């Protein structure tokens, strides 16, 4: 009950802040909120990816690599075929393949999961660096689609209902994954496998299969995040362009207590830090060297992780390979 009321207090303060800012400068408020959402999308997708794995007991530290390789191949697909949706499909597929590799290492080989994820990250950096081409471009990225009527609402309309397609898809996915995790047999099985795999196994649940499938779904989400970066947010590929988002996403996941909807709210907080970074730089409103503004999201991540001592509880079997008896 206490936590519930505290959430309302936080929500109230945020709302008040937005309204005051809107009163002071409607244009800037709208811009900052729009950038916040755009920055939050890859983070919440990454967090959903991490959450799918960890709810069933596998830590995925390779989200960064999954995103990076997917971003690259999604982009190159559009360079070759000029088809944005084919690019998205390839990005998702790349994520799935990387998810399969992680599952093979972590579930079948029972490798240390941190090392397994690190392998994915280093592999992605190597492959994208080797095959990277200077001077290739795509004709255009995804453009915003205004939803009739809703997009006319002041402030909320342009921020929420006038976005490119992958943003809408992500918002829908947050709800879908929440539903799958908490209202379907598969979700129940996943959580059982993440909390007590032995008991789940006794009840006839195939622990390995659940972990494999969830890591593949997670990979697809990270792949979508990669495609979002190149095909919707930036419109080009640069080396190391994920810039730590895969790791920040893990902090988002923890902050959201392994739940999709709180994770989405947490991603907005981090998105806001990233939005401040770009907006403050663009407008040069304050005279702080940009490097210090760039540090914000990373320092925020550390503070969030450090401030959550004892307040979060990961799934009980998180990070432990399952050995069948």
């Amino acid at each position, binding site marked *: 009950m206490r936590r519930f009321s505290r959430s309302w207090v936080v929500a109230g303060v945020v709302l008040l802040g937005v309204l005051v800012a809107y009163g002071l400068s409607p244009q800037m408020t709208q811009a900052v909120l729009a950038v916040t959402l755009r920055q939050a999308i890859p983070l919440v997708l990454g967090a959903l990816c991490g959450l799918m794995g960890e709810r069933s007991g596998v*830590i995925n*530290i390779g989200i960064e690599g999954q995103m990076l390789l997917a971003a690259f191949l999604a982009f190159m697909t559009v360079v070759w075929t000029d088809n944005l949706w084919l690019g998205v499909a390839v990005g998702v597929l790349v994520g799935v393949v990387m998810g399969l590799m992680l599952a093979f*290492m972590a579930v079948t*080989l*029972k*490798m*240390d*999961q*941190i*090392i*397994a994820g*690190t*392998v994915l990250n*280093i*592999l992605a*950096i*190597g*492959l994208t*660096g*080797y095959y*990277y081409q200077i001077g290739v471009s795509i004709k255009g990225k995804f453009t915003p689609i205004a939803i009739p009527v809703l997009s006319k609402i002041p402030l909320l309309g342009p921020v929420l209902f006038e976005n490119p397609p992958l943003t809408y898809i992500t918002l829908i996915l947050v709800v879908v994954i929440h539903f799958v995790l908490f209202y379907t047999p598969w979700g129940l099985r996943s959580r059982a496998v993440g909390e007590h795999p032995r008991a789940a196994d006794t009840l006839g649940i195939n622990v390995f299969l659940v972990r494999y499938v969830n890591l593949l779904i997670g990979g697809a989400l990270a792949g979508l995040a990669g495609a979002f970066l190149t095909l919707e947010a930036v419109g080009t590929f640069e080396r190391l362009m994920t810039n*730590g988002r895969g*790791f*920040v996403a*893990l*902090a988002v996941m*923890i902050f959201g207590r392994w739940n999709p909807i709180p994770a989405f709210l947490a991603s907005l907080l981090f998105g806001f830090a990233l939005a401040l970074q770009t907006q403050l730089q663009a407008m040069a409103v304050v005279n702080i*060297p940009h*490097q*210090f503004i*760039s*540090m914000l999201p*990373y*320092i925020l*991540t*550390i503070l969030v*992780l*450090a*401030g*959550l*001592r*004892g307040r*979060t509880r*990961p799934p009980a079997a*998180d*990070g*432990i390979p399952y050995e069948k008896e």
Partner: protein
Amino acid sequence: MRRLARSLLGPLLAVLIALLIGAVLLSLSGFDPVQAYLALFDGAFGSTRAWQRTLEKATPLIFAGLAVAFGFRGGLFNIGAQGQLVLGAMTAAIIGFAVSGLPAWAHIGLALLAGALVGALFGAIPGVLKVYTGAHEVITTIMLNYVAVNLTDYLSGGPLKDPAGGGVIARTPPILESAQMPVWGPLPSGFVLSVLLAAVVYVVLNATTYGFEVRMVGQNARAARYAGVRVAWVVVSTMLLSGLMAGLGGAVETLGVVHRFQPGFNVGLGFEGITVALLGRNHPAGVILAALLVGAMKAGSNQMQFAARVPREILDVIMALMLFFVAADYIIRTLLRLREEGEERLVLTTGWGSYE
């Protein structure tokens, strides 16, 4: 002897398989892998100058590899070696150009000490965070890498920027001659220092009570606590020493090779340290061998790019493959019960903040 052969077998196989897959990738991209690898070898070992390059490239990798390996032995994954190394390099550069009038030995010594100290303090932060807040070091060290890079970018492009040549390039002024570490024939003095450090790490880990405690915490923190080990202190000091080694590596790179701080010149060294540590199976001698291998690859990459027109990034792919096969090797050996007696298992995944 058989034990030695056995522990070399896995990494060697990993390297061979990685090179083979690399050759396949090269031929798929239309290059001649034999020509590429020959050029690579020639660039790494073909002349005295090539040898010096290889040793120079191996030196920071030994430091970074020892830093990561020492953390691993204590059950900690220091992905932050990169950030600690960069800060060490920057600190050494500052001492190198700003302090004058010292004899060479004192100037070099001071710069090395300062670099190591800053690396140690920066490395200790994730240790303290882990012990007192439960924040997992894998994430905090990565985040601190970004902090370190931004900080050094700011310093070298702002207050410490070299005004020479119109100040176009963001970099610090060059260090004074008295701060440059000597090269003896093909042998850089920094390489000698790194080998000495490896020996010290070996002795500390295997012949001191402290080293025993570190390994005990790495194997099972809970058991170590029951046995009366002050786990919190061991975790913080392990991260501190790990950071010290990485910082020292950065300082040596500045004083021995780069001779100033320039952003981008140290990129990737800390991450390659992870590959080196795992390839060297977290043993100081193994780290030296693995660093020589990776160093040779980096030293020969120019020649390979020049003679065979192969982009050097293929080496990143090959290194990732090495890491994959050497990491998978742990498992294969376990499954086949090939594991030698007394060998320690690598336990890193302790969950998020579940470190009690």
